[in-house]
């Protein structure tokens, strides 16, 4: 067990914890976006930054990834932290102006209008979808591709992913509702037969349940019996 100070309070922590984990354990709230308990921390949104005292002065660190160390002195709500959070919120608002979570965050921090241009989709590149697909589902169907302004989440070669299993975990973990199932699968179907899927009507009973490939087999086998 190690001891560190958060907001003037001495707290105990297990070695190997991050500052965020320690804070949460002790009921100290630090806002996060790209943090998820079931995923390895990523540190992309920068909302969770806290002020850490170092020999060379105060340093802003991402609490979700920064390890808690013996004797560390951490401030979660200093002016430096609040300023950083406000700017982060402003940038997030410009990236995802229509996302409820971002608007609520911005309002809370007193940010109204971003001073930079507005994005046209809600993706904030937090990577939750990619990480969930890799670490929880283990299908690894999507990834963050390109760099800089063109960085985005995509399936390989921007066509429907063969590895996607259609579980919609990515849709579920996305904080800004920026990803849709079609974006990954390339169409709405979990079956591969061209990109325009339509359920075939069974020639015998007329119901639209049969997926084309099995329509052939089922109709053949039904045809052999007395229907």
């Amino acid at each position, binding site marked *: 067990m190690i001891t560190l100070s958060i907001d003037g309070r001495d707290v105990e922590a297990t070695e190997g914890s991050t500052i965020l984990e320690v804070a949460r354990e002790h009921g100290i709230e630090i806002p996060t976006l790209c943090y998820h308990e079931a995923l390895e921390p990523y540190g992309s949104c920068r909302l969770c930054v806290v002020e850490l005292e170092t020999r060379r002065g105060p340093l802003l660190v991402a609490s979700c990834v920064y390890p808690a160390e013996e004797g560390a002195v951490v401030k979660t709500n200093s002016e430096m932290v609040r300023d950083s959070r406000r700017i982060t919120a402003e940038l997030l608002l410009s990236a995802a102006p229509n996302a409820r979570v971002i608007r609520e965050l911005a309002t809370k921090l007193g940010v109204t209008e971003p001073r930079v241009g507005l994005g046209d989709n809600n993706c904030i590149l937090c990577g939750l979808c990619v990480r969930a697909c890799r670490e929880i589902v283990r299908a690894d169907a999507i990834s963050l591709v390109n760099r800089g302004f063109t960085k985005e989440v995509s399936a390989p070669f921007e066509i429907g992913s063969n590895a996607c299993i259609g579980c919609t975990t990515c849709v579920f973990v996305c904080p800004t509702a920026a990803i849709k199932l079609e974006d990954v699968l390339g169409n709405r179907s979990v079956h591969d037969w061209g990109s325009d899927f339509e359920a*075939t009507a069974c020639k015998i009973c007329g119901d639209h349940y049969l997926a084309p490939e099995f329509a052939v087999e089922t109709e053949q086998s039904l045809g052999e019996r007395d229907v």
Partner: protein
Amino acid sequence: MTAQARVRIGVFVCECGGKISDAVEVGAVVDGAAKMPGVVLAERELYGCSKAGLARIAQAIEEHGLDRVVVVGCTPRTHGPLFEAALSKAGLGGSRFEMVNAREQCALVHADDRYAATKKTLDLTRMGVAKAAVLKPIQKVEVDVAPAALVIGGGIAGLTAATTVATRGFPVRLVEKAPQLGGQVAGLHTLYPSGERAKEFIGKKIRAVQEHEDIDVLIGATVTDMSGSAGDYKVTVSQDGSNHSFQVGAVIVATGGQEAEPTEGSEHSSVRLVTQTELEHDLQQGGPNAERVAIVVVEPSPEQYSSVSAAAALKNSALLKRRNPGAAVSLLFNDLSSELSSAMIQEAKALGVQFYKYGGEQPPRIAEEGVEVFDHLRGDQAIIPCDLVVLAMPLVPQSDAAAVSRLLGLPMDERGFLPEPSVRLRPGSYIPRGIFACGSVHYPADVRESIFQGYRAGVRAVRHLSSGKLTSSGPRAQVIEGRCVGCGTCVESCPYHAITMRTRDGTLSVSRIDPSLCNGCGNCTVVCPTKAITMEPCTDRELVAQIDAALAARMSGESLILAFLCEWSGYAAADLAGAEGRQYPSSVRIVRVGCSARFDPYLVLWAFLQGADGVLLGACDPGMCHYVDGNRRAAERAETLGRMLKQAGFDCRRLRLEYFEADDAARFVETVSEFAEEIEYLGPTGEVEADQSGSTHVGEELLVFES
């Protein structure tokens, strides 16, 4: 009750840092859980999934000798693996764990009614505890992969796949039915757009395969049998009247396609009619000698359009013109697909090839002097005089595609191609079959596409073979032989052909389910007339336990709906509804299943008999079932059951099967709310006694709301 007496269940109720405790009275849940059958410990955690939380749970397991853990927290879809891993480390592996979804199914969706949210959480906890009490751990299946591959087909795709696998260290057996390797490409003249000679090109590939020490080529041979299961197939090949058998772990199907047969011939002796394949042969021999040639891109139906033949036709038209600038070369087409290289089209036009768009309604006819065509661009009939007409027919599956499909259990699509079935299930929850398809067996592919696909299939086969061991810890059906009467109904019901009959004691037949082929849909468990098939963790026992527990603490006047939702549709939609903060009535209790194929009419009846006011079955949209067509079967069963209920005088409006999309939370909430309203209107199915719970002291923990 004895099963419950034997287990020692620990219940950990998570506050989720306030997200749950803001809407649910966690203390009441802990108090209620402590009194549930089999529970020896009930505690609350601020963050159950945190490092410290998991450590405390591990410690509790040791201190209290727990053999089952129930976590009342958020959705198992994201946090399940986290807890499973931690519990495994603490010695409680093999799925002796159940997660109750109090956050997405209660706290976030019934945020304005603390009492209802708490009552529902208690009910869901009771269901989780009841299930945990009868849970049996899932056995892992392990299959050793035979480190060798079979490639069926020695065309460009097969040759590429074979070299890809062999260069990565796995021996390959390549089986080709013709007397030589090379497939379709060996019969071509030139390739486009490079203009390379096909024979030289494929010759290089053939030599590479023949000279590779790890590739064993069998020509003039066909695969006659394939038995065994994933990872270890026993293949029998027939060659020159003798049979060879060998074991492989992966199979690559590259049997390719062929040019379709033209439907019409030519009665006019002055016009010679050939297929494009014959033209390519001619070109190889130095011919053809014709001053006036018309190449017709034939499109028997829109679905049969093959851009491969069209591109080859384009290439050939330019080639003929380049070779004999004085010749009259015409290219007739219905619709030149945008996939064709515009550079090639421009080049052909520049060389003087005449392009005629004929339009679909009036295909060209072979007449006395040439080809009669309705020229769309000019708007009238034209007769193109020619002495040679080339019919560029689309690429269709090989004649033996149906046989290959049956042999390998690969479904065929409507056109007879073998699309590689995509298994959209969680990695690690099923055994991948190790059968890959590449090239035109799949879909008409040109040379470049075939090479790419051959390479891709090869690499995927290598990855499969490199696994060494294939493991699956997903649900798998098992036959209780003592109950099996050998009726064979289960055999027909399995979409994966995993069930066979075998004899027991020399006379009686019983079913046998191949654990490496079973993907856990549950069809067989439902259709078995003697209930001789079980499937952890979704056995009848577990489902009945949950149904009973959901209804055990009914309050009078409380409407209660059991919702059986498949995890790919309704359950996921319910989670998303929670994430989006959508509110809906709290009368629904969700039971999660892997596939709607698991919906057993008997269980629905049981739910009604136990007092459920409504039963909702949630399945994937038609055509979207991850287990082929479980949802179709579910719909049929629900419909039949509905009719039976109606005949029995029961209001069948109380039973509904609905299709849900995993990412459409709005529709989920709309449907559930509407159903809940209707059930409320229909009233209770029976009388509910004020204090009908024998097993828990219902209401005591809820008294906290009265102060």
